[in-house]
């Protein structure tokens, strides 16, 4: 077995930190996997910002309804007790602080909790923000799941984001393939190391000062 956590293990580790009964919004990509790893004895209710509370798993071909999708425009199902609502109500749940946890992917996250996950700022890029800026400002706790570095080995945990911000100072905890990292008043601090990973490796691959586990 190679060292570090897989995508599924990162998602499972994040799920451990979501309390029973939480209303949860999951971003696209690895965050979607969190729903597969709900700890025994807990229930999470999933919100999807296009207008559904009580989102269930992907449908079978027979179950599929073209008018029932999530914010990533994938077809979904509902659980008993689900509710539909329009966008103003949906974003009232977000901005009004009614959603407990949001799990997002990211391009960069900074030591002060800044997150940049909507645009590279490249001149020819077509900007597309969706609900990301609403979520990071409104949801009570913002978790990030991300590989510790980019495909080319650049750190994604940085001193200061070079990409345009989605929101300043909003992230509380980061789950990477190498470690669980908290954003504290003193900057990044490792809360937990993945199996087979030592602190020195995490420090080398982090683009900002980082404190060892307490």
């Amino acid at each position, binding site marked *: 077995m190679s060292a570090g956590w897989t995508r599924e293990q990162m998602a499972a580790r994040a799920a451990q930190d979501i309390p029973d009964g939480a209303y949860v919004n999951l971003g696209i990509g690895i965050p979607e996997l969190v729903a597969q790893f709900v700890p025994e004895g807990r229930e999470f209710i999933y919100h999807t910002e296009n207008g559904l509370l009580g989102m269930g798993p992907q449908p079978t071909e027979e179950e599929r309804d073209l008018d029932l*999708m999530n914010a990533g425009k994938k077809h979904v199902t509902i659980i008993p007790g689900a509710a539909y609502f*329009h966008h103003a109500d949906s974003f009232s749940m977000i*901005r009004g602080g009614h959603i407990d946890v949001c799990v997002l992917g990211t391009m960069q996250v900074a030591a002060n909790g800044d997150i940049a996950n909507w645009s590279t700022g490249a001149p020819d890029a077509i900007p597309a923000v969706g*609900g990301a*800026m609403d979520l990071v400002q*409104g949801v009570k706790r913002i978790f990030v799941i991300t590989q510790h570095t980019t495909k080319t080995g650049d750190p994604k945990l940085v001193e200061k984001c070079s990409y345009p911000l989605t929101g300043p100072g909003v992230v509380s905890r980061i789950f990477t393939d190498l470690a669980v990292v908290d954003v504290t008043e003193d900057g990044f601090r490792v809360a937990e190391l993945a199996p087979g990973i030592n602190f020195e490796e995490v420090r080398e691959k982090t683009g900002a000062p980082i404190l060892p586990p307490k």
Partner: protein
Amino acid sequence: MINKQYASVAEAVADIPDGATVMVGGFGASGSPIELLHALIDHGATDLTVINNNTGNGEVGLAALIGNGQVSKMICSFPRSSQSKVFPELYRAGKVALEIVPQGTLAERIRAAGAGVPAFYTPTTVGTVLAEGKEVREFNGRPYVMESWLKADFALIKCEVADSLGNLTYNKTARNFSPLMCMAATTTVVQTKTLVDRGGIDPEHVVTPGIFVNRVVEVTQPIHEDVLIAEGRSYP
């Protein structure tokens, strides 16, 4: 006696003028009023400003309206997707303008217009490039950005059941922006899968009250955008 029924989608959009601002319901393919959009393509109004969360998919519906050169500006939160090709090409060629608005702010600006509230403060975009040039004010020690209402001349909406007074219900997540857009447009045009007489919808189940709706057209077998794209169709 009030009856908001129109005989055809063509009649229902016939007076949309060049230069109009048009809200289009839908989030991706769900709730997209394909028949009304195709009627607007046939009608031919140009220089439109269109408000929708996205910019359409494939070469049907909203994407076809843009591709037909009828749209000069899009106001949306997420203008690209795996199946959107028309808008990105025309945008890069400088043929259509873009105003990018966060999704929740877009919804609230539309709701505010319908509710008669000219502006509001939101935490969304604080500290980002999308707040540049906008008023920021502190409430209880936290900064908020001022955003203004967003109105339209027309709204094109798809619903599930309508009565002759314009009371509406929707299907699942096809509801999305539509109830807000019904409120915010001067003239709201609705295509419904089922049209019932007044009293045919339980008042407890009405999602959009008929006061926000001006025209209702029955389209009994609406084509879903996903189906058209899967079949590789284009319009016209």
